[in-house]
């Protein structure tokens, strides 16, 4: 290129040749005619000396050296020497200098000056060079289009020039690697003043694209694969693209990789994977596939849609430590911070959640386990499976009070049963304390019978312990509601759990009845009275105290008074019960049930009643016995005497 540029400069300088001093660049092998004097640069040596041939006479010059030709009034000076560029500056001095390019003494020829190649292909031309001038070395140069590469080759190696005797000829090859862009391009081979123009035709590369089955059926929510065949007439790199309906996605897959471009050499096979959204309606959809200039339209027929359906998430949750499946785990789907679906795992650790299609945050949590969050995508009408491992917290415990709200009567101590469970991974010690109502006593104990308090307890991992909180009200306590706080602190995690213990203190109720007698003799048909005393043994008043008597059928029972409106603590009430057995009652023993009933309590007792047949039966019997004995005695007295 530089050579070409300097040659052009040289040509531009031609009109200036008439000036007194002319600067001239000359390459090895170049010849210039100055006012009829032939100047030829034979060679340049590495010590910056140049061999000039002037009118056939050789001169060896160094920088500043000159050759004078007096009859032509011309002096030639040697300027800068560039051995690497194979170039020298010459300064010519003389009046009316005329520079003329010397006539080419070398002839270049080829039989096939025009060749065809695919883009990027290589072509080779065979060139014959013939020396019509003097013997000498003729350097060869190649002029190529931008981005092309070319070499001059002879006898298997690259050459820079050719040495020819007068009239001799030789052959060499020009090998050119063409560019990528199709078209006709000139390639010029030059030596000295001769040049040969060659033409390289870079042909267009034809790419074809096809699919085995250009239309396929697919269910919405699934993906469909098309096998794409690419072939080309030449080697070419192509971008791949596929245009799909909105919401769909497409990928080209070669082997296991997703690809965007292909370097095609004759033929290749690709997979086009098209994902169809679950809500795509049934219908035929076009997919435009292109590789470079090649296009093809493929079709996907959606045969079943899942629009409006829920997606299903099937979960299994297991304990990462033991590997066993966990039941009772809460699994929930959240979208935008709001819960959408929630479930608990079954005994095999499985749970199934359903929700509309979309992206969700799945939260998996269980007491004593670290919560796990995961992003999941649910597709309408399809099932997504997830397996999640939970890890247990190092320290975790549960405090459960069986009945935190109690009612008790005055004078009682109140015992709350509670359970501590260490659900953490590690053994732990717990500090126990109770804040009782003011003036009350409180202890935590392991045995409800004992009054020996404990302030801490140790639980191994997985263990549970039953403990009792005992509240002891002071003697001066008044009726009402009281609250105490049970506090349990884990020494492992420092976590504190509390439970409110409430007690409602009420008065006590008690009732007893004391009959005057426990057995009663009554004549059939006659009334008999019995006094029954009723006592309120409690501290609070009893209301609506009455006496109910349960007697055999046909008996008449009267009780007075009918009802006592209120009976204070420790007070007595006296009732009179009048019992009348029916006149025809059989003589014998009967039992009546006497029950003292109040709104709050009741008590009962039994009283034996002996019914006599108006007394007459008994006496009559004795009378008859006596009478008969007397009769017997009289008979014996009267007739028994001899």
């Amino acid at each position, binding site marked *: 290129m530089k050579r070409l540029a300097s040659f052009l400069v040289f040509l531009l300088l031609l009109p200036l040749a008439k000036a007194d001093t002319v600067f001239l660049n000359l390459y090895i092998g170049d010849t210039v005619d100055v006012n009829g004097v032939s100047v030829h640069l034979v060679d340049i040596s590495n010590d910056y000396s140049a061999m000039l041939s002037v009118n056939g006479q050789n001169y060896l010059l160094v920088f500043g050296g000159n050759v004078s030709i007096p009859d032509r009034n011309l002096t030639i000076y040697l300027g800068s020497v560039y051995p690497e560029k194979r170039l020298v500056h010459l300064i010519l001095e003389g009046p009316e200098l005329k520079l003329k390019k010397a006539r080419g003494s070398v002839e270049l020829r080829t039989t096939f000056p025009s060749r065809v190649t695919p883009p990027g292909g290589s072509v080779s031309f065979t060139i014959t060079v013939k020396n019509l001038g003097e013997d000498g070395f003729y350097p060869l140069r190649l002029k190529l289009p931008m981005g092309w590469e070319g070499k001059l080759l002879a006898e298997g190696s690259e050459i820079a020039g050719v040495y020819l005797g007068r009239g001799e000829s030789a052959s060499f090859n020009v090998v050119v690697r063409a560019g990528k862009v199709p078209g006709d391009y000139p390639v010029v081979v030059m030596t000295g003043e001769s040049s040969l123009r060659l033409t390289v035709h870079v042909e267009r590369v034809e790419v074809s694209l096809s699919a085995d089955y250009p239309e396929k059926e697919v269910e919405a929510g699934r993906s469909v694969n098309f096998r794409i065949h690419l072939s080309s007439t030449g080697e070419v790199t192509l971008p791949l693209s596929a245009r799909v309906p909105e919401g769909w996605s497409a990928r080209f897959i070669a082997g296991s990789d997703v690809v965007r471009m292909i370097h095609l050499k004759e033929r290749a096979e690709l997979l086009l994977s098209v994902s169809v959204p679950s809500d795509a309606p049934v219908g035929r959809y076009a997919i435009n596939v292109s590789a470079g200039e090649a296009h093809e339209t493929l079709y996907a027929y959606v045969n079943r849609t899942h629009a409006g359906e829920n997606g299903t998430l099937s979960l299994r949750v297991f304990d990462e430590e033991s590997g066993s499946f966990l039941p009772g785990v809460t699994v929930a789907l959240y979208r935008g911070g709001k819960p959408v679906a929630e479930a608990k795992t079954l005994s095999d650790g499985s749970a199934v959640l359903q929700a509309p299609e979309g992206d969700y945050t799945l939260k998996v949590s269980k007491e004593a386990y670290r919560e796990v969050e995961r992003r999941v995508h649910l597709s309408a009408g399809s099932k997504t499976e997830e397996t999640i491992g939970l890890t247990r917290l190092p320290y975790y415990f549960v405090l459960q009070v069986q009945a935190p709200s109690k009612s008790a009567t005055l004078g009682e101590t109140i015992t709350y049963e509670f359970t501590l469970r260490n659900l953490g991974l590690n053994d732990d010690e717990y500090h126990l304390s109770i804040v009782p109502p003011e003036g009350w006593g409180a202890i935590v104990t392991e045995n409800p019978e004992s009054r020996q308090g404990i302030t801490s307890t140790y639980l191994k991992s997985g263990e549970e312990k039953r403990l009792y909180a005992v509240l002891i009200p002071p003697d001066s306590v008044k009726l009402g509601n009281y609250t105490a706080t049970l506090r349990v602190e884990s020494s492992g995690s420092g976590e504190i759990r509390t439970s409110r213990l409430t007690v409602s203190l009420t008065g006590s109720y008690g009732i007893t009845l004391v009959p005057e007698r426990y057995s009663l003799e009554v004549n059939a048909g006659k009334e008999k009275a019995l006094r029954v005393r009723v006592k309120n043994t409690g501290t609070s008043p009893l209301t609506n105290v009455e006496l109910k008597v349960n007697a*055999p059928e046909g008996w008449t029972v009267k009780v007075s008074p009918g009802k006592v409106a209120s009976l204070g603590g420790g007070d007595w009430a006296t009732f009179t019960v009048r019992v009348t057995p029916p006149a025809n009652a*059989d*003589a*014998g*023993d*009967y*039992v*009546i049930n006497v029950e003292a009933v109040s709104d709050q309590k009741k008590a009962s007792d*039994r009283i*034996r009643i002996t019914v*006599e*047949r108006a007394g007459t*039966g*008994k006496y*009559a*019997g*004795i*009378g*008859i*016995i*006596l*009478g*008969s*004995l007397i*009769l*017997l005695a009289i*008979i*014996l007295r009267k*007739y*028994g*005497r*001899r």
Partner: protein
Amino acid sequence: MIGAIAGKEFRDYLTGRRFLIIFSFLLATITLSLIQTKMGLESWNVPGSEGPKMYDIMFGLSFYLGFIGAIFALSLGFDAVTREHEDRTLKVLMGHPVFRDQVILGKLLGGALTLGVAVAVTALITTGMLLWIGVTIDDYLRLFTYFLLIYLYLMTFFTMAVAFSAHSKSSGNALMYSLVMFLALMTILMPIGSIVAHKLAGPKPEMPDELKALQEQMMQGNASMEEMQKYQTLMDEYQNQTEKWFKRYWKIQEYFQMFSPENDFTTITNYVLNPYAEKSEEQGMAYMVANPGENEKPKHSLMESLSFAEKELAVLVGYLVLWFVVAYLGFVRAEIR
């Protein structure tokens, strides 16, 4: 004349130590039994329940009355005639212008009077005791009939003893014969009846071999539906035959039982005391279970109740007549030396 002999006999009985001892024993037994009942009632009381009925208590008493009473009757009669022989008073008596039949009738009448007094006293004391205990006597007529029945029953044994006395040479023999006859009628009649019934009723139907095999199969639980039906048919047939056989057996047994005065007495007692007792047609045995709680059972009048025991009454009266005739003939034809 009969009256004089009867009066003399009556006096003799009453003054006799035997009468006093055995009658006292009878009275003591009854009294103690009733006192025991009274004590039992007191501890056994169920609140609100009805007291025990008269027939419940009297039924228990009947055993003592039936057994000790019979011995008492025998003791009165066994030496009625032989004593006269042994004391050689008969010749003295025969020396008087009396007929032999007047003597034997007078003796029987005297014994009947004595027994009457004894039964009357027993009845009064029992009634008095019942009243004292507090048992409701709902039907005095039935109680009265009951004591009449006892009287009839005791009279059969008394006449029997007199009959043996008339035919025996000594009192000892008469007592022995009387006791043997009494025991025979009380105890031996039943087993003999059973043996005869077995003989007459023919062999008891045996279970056919086929039925046995089927039953075995059923026990093991591998019988088919058809086999089960066949088993049912055969079993029904077998049970039918067995039932028929038992009916025949009981019918024959019944005749033998009827000749036991003790059995007759028990049967009639049940009907007389318990107005709810049903006549048992199917079997020869009357069920002696009184069931006052079951009010569904109809209450019978006294005449109805007595009509249920016609046969037994007839047999008792028959015995009385038979022994009377035997005694009469025995004494009238006796050779008196």
